[in-house]
């Protein structure tokens, strides 16, 4: 079943290389996303069996990530219907890369072997790189280049981390997760520590944790909205899954203190850095990229704080994905309408495209954690974890950074939403399917904010138990 899930998008990606029409490609993509979504939904009822000698396992952690990925692809596919109505360019490369990404991200979610995990994460980097350069202009190429280079270096460090882990687990003789967990008492702690540092820095690059975040504003600023969603919502969280896997090992090996102290520092840096940069920012997408860095910071902060924080972090994974999908899809729809997403070029959206304007405001509120959106709860959980674990300075600093971040994003978004309207350069109508895709995420996010399903809570609790934080 899992193999099928991984292969399905991959095979259809190969199919696109045949000479088929644009419409067919679109339909195929939608079909694949829906199938993927359906299968993942089935997994919620019945977890699939282990495959490939325990290399592929779907545990609650993986299921959460897999559902996020699947949902994001679903909403992107709906969005795409509208997007390509107005887009003269071919969708072939985009779709191929997206499908391959879907395949590899599924692999990330289900791989239970650290080597396989590495391979699949590296593969996601490679398939996402061409997506950034979709617009084929100088800036987007530059952004792609930076993304590729930084992430490759990060991934290389991650590879070293994997090797160090292998050395540490010399006695276990395998990198399969359950085996390592079982033999955690025999792990060599020094090598473990080295490996943890390399893991955090390496996968942190991919996640965009400060100070290795620098590719993010460029890449997200250049990518189309859909790609932004996949990258900010799914790709970064795939790397977070890698960190969670390490956390499992660390907690078992009694290195929680060591691990969490680094994560807390990383998290704080990731809250601080975007706060420093955001106030001077002009472009919506870049602002959202900073917001993404901030959210990654929150995630690792929650992981570092453990207990309630961990629950919050896992919940925030879901919320962040939904919020990012709202944010970047809206930004993408604006960018398509105006040919720009800069605050000084776009004004008064709400008067010309009322729905898009409202959605943009919703995106902003969701991204900054306002109440009816579920991000509010997860942020609170993480802050609460900071306070209950007596990290008062942390909570205070975090709150200041979040506040500055809010100001920065508000400045840009409200500048775009309100004001005397400027006619769009490429006069286009609101598109139902684009808006529907965004609305779906908004509704889900609000729904989660107002009522958390019992099943989800159980699943997250299972995942927390799995990580075994104290």
């Amino acid at each position, binding site marked *: 079943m899992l193999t099928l899930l991984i292969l399905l998008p991959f095979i259809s990606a190969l199919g696109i290389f045949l000479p088929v029409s644009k419409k067919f490609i679109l339909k195929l993509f939608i079909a694949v996303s829906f199938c993927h979504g359906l299968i993942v939904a089935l997994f919620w009822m019945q977890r699939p069996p282990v495959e490939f000698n325990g290399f592929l396992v779907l545990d609650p952690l993986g299921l959460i990530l897999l559902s996020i990925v699947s949902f994001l692809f679903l909403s992107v596919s709906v969005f795409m219907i509208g997007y390509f109505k107005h887009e003269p360019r071919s969708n072939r490369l985009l779709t191929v890369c997206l499908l391959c990404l879907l395949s590899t991200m599924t692999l990330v979610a289900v791989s239970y072997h650290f080597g396989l995990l590495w391979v699949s994460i590296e593969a996601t980097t490679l398939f996402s790189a061409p997506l950034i350069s979709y617009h084929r202009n100088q800036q987007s190429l530059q952004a792609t*280049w*930076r993304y590729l*280079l*930084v992430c490759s*270096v*990060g991934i290389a*460090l991650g590879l070293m981390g994997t090797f160090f882990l292998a050395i540490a687990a010399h006695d276990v003789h395998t990198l399969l997760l359950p085996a390592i967990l079982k033999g955690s008492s025999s792990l060599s702690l020094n090598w473990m*520590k*080295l490996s943890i*540092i390399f893991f*955090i*820095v390496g996968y942190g*690059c991919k996640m965009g944790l400060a*100070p*290795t975040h*620098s*590719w993010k504003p460029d890449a997200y600023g250049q990518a189309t909205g859909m790609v932004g969603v996949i990258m900010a919502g799914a790709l970064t969280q795939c790397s977070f899954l890698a960190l969670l896997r390490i956390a499992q090992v660390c907690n078992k090996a009694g290195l929680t203190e*060591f691990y969490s102290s*680094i994560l807390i520092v990383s998290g704080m840096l990731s809250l601080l850095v975007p706060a*420093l*940069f*955001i*106030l*001077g*920012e002009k472009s919506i997408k870049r602002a959202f990229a900073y917001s993404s860095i901030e959210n990654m910071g929150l995630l690792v902060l929650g992981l570092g704080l453990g207990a309630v924080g961990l629950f*919050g972090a896992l919940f925030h994974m879901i919320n962040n994905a939904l919020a990012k999908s709202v944010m970047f899809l809206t930004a993408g729809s604006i960018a398509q309408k105006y040919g720009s997403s800069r605050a000084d070029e776009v004004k008064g959206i709400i008067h010309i495209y*009322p729905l898009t304007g409202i959605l943009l405001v919703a995106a902003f509120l969701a991204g*900054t954690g*306002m*109440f*009816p959106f579920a991000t*509010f*709860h997860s942020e*609170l*959980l993480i*802050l*609460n974890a900071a*306070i209950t674990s007596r990290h008062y300075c942390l*909570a*205070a600093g975090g*709150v*200041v950074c*979040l*506040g*500055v971040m*809010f*100001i*920065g994003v*508000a*400045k840009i978004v*409200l500048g775009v939403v*309100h*004001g*005397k309207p400027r006619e769009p350069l490429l006069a286009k109508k609101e598109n139902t399917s684009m808006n529907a895709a965004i609305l779906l995420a908004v509704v889900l996010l609000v729904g989660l*904010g*107002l*009522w*958390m*399903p019992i099943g989800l*809570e159980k699943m997250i609790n299972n995942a927390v138990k799995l990580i075994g934080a104290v």
Partner: protein
Amino acid sequence: MEKYFQSSWHVPFGEFSLKFDPLSFIFLVAVIILILCAGIYAVGYMRPYASKRPVGLHIFFYLVLSLALIVIVLANNVILFLGAWEIMSVSAFFLVVFKDEESDVRRAGFLYLIASHCGTFLLIIMFFLMASNSGSMNFDIISHAPFPPVLAGVIFLLAIFGFGVKAGFIPLHIWLPHAHPAAPSHVSAVLSGVMIKMGIYGICRVLWMIGVLPDWCGYLLLIIGVLCGVMGVLYALGQHELKRLLAYHSIENIGIVALGLGVGLLGESHRMPFLAVLGFGGALLHVFNHAIFKGLLFLAAGAVIQKTHTGEMDRMGGMAKVMPLVSILFLIGALAICGLPLFNGFISEFIIYFGLFQGIFHLPLQGTFVCALGIIALALMGTLALACFSKVYGTVFLGEPRVPKGSQLGERISLWMCIPMIVLAGFCLWIGLFPRTAAGIAFLGGAFLSHADLLELPMDNIFSPLTCMIGGVVLFLALVLILTYLRVLFLKALPASVSETWRCGFSYVTPRMQYTSSSFARLILDFFKRILFYKRTFPQVKGFFPQSASMSSSVSDFFEEFLFKPVFGKLTNLSRKLDISRIRYTQMYLMYIFLYLIILLVWKLK
């Protein structure tokens, strides 16, 4: 008196727990009255916009705001409270930016949103500190846990800052004078009447939960009250725009409330339940009163503005003849806000004065001193408010119109707009003349807040003077009637003629030569110019036949101009600089990774 409504609400730490107690009752009544009145008013007020703007959306947010306000005062759970709090902030933001093409309005909305959100962050920390002390997110359980004094102090400070942003404590008030004039008038009424009171409600709720605080907290609140009150009214005096002036007056009134709360706190920390009840009760009553009369004033101001299409007081005049009913209603509001007898402001200010004097008699030396300061400040506030509102009433409603008559014919003021104002004015008069009920409820709230038993306190010590006071006021009314009768008698025999105002011999006089609001306020502002940064600019008039010249005066808000603007500007500049110098070479990106790796290795593996 306490009633609960419990229901499950499945979000992390959440529970849908509502609690009804005397404290929430007072705020709830204020909220409901004002929301209903402003809502009915809006029907008339929004009519001219109906075809031009998304009024439906506006109404939606108005309803959301109403709901949020109600939930806030009833919430018994931290998450529920914070959620409703955020909803309130956001929906109020949308109400404020109704006319978003105007850059002032946008700025106001932005300022408001960031101010309230940043305040919320402090609240989050505060509530979590409380929750971690007691291990629950339920207000009741939190209130049962004892608080160590240091923690209590920290929580108190966080509450002052977090809720102070919403309440408009100086220097956190800067959003307030922008947001209120920017919003449509019924929204301003709700914002000023009840929304900023939610800050006060929050502080009260926290005080209730913590129980006894160290006495410096009381002094702090008193000082804040003095600062807010005096500065608020002085800034108000320097304004030329009607609604902005009213907005600054909200700050003043919040200051008065803070004075009351400070007295209450002192009473609590010095174990004087009567003093505590007086202070808290006075503050709560003033909260309610301010909601009523400020709502009335904003609604009346809205009617005037709709008629004249301007908020500039120096372009108005003689409105009493154009809209007699509104002028009387405004006068009632003005008298009430100045704390003059007959109306409700007088009652609450009297109770707070009374509390301050009790404080003088019974508190230790520093308490006496601070209370005396409070009394003097309250007296000063009272007269300054009097000066301010006589200026407003005189320039807007009396005298001659300062602009040609034709320009004052805006929309007709419909019945929808008048009835709510009349109702509010009725409340002013009711509490002003029959204060026993309202004061009794307020004292109930005060007793609840100070965990005291009302029955054991000598409440007659305050009720009997109150009754005598009303007796005096009634006597005054009787005197007025008698004298009116006398005057009629005198005048019956004598002819009265109508003519021009006597101008001491000047013949060519235009309405523009009247004293304007700016010239009226000049003496006072000049006196306080050092703290108000009062500036007047006028060109030198030269030659025998000088060209037309103009003069302008302005008061700059110290905290906005010299505190927040520079800091924010510096931060933005820093951010821009960082962004420009954002290293263009990809190598540097790699360098960061490298350095970070090295630092981690050195730090962790040393």
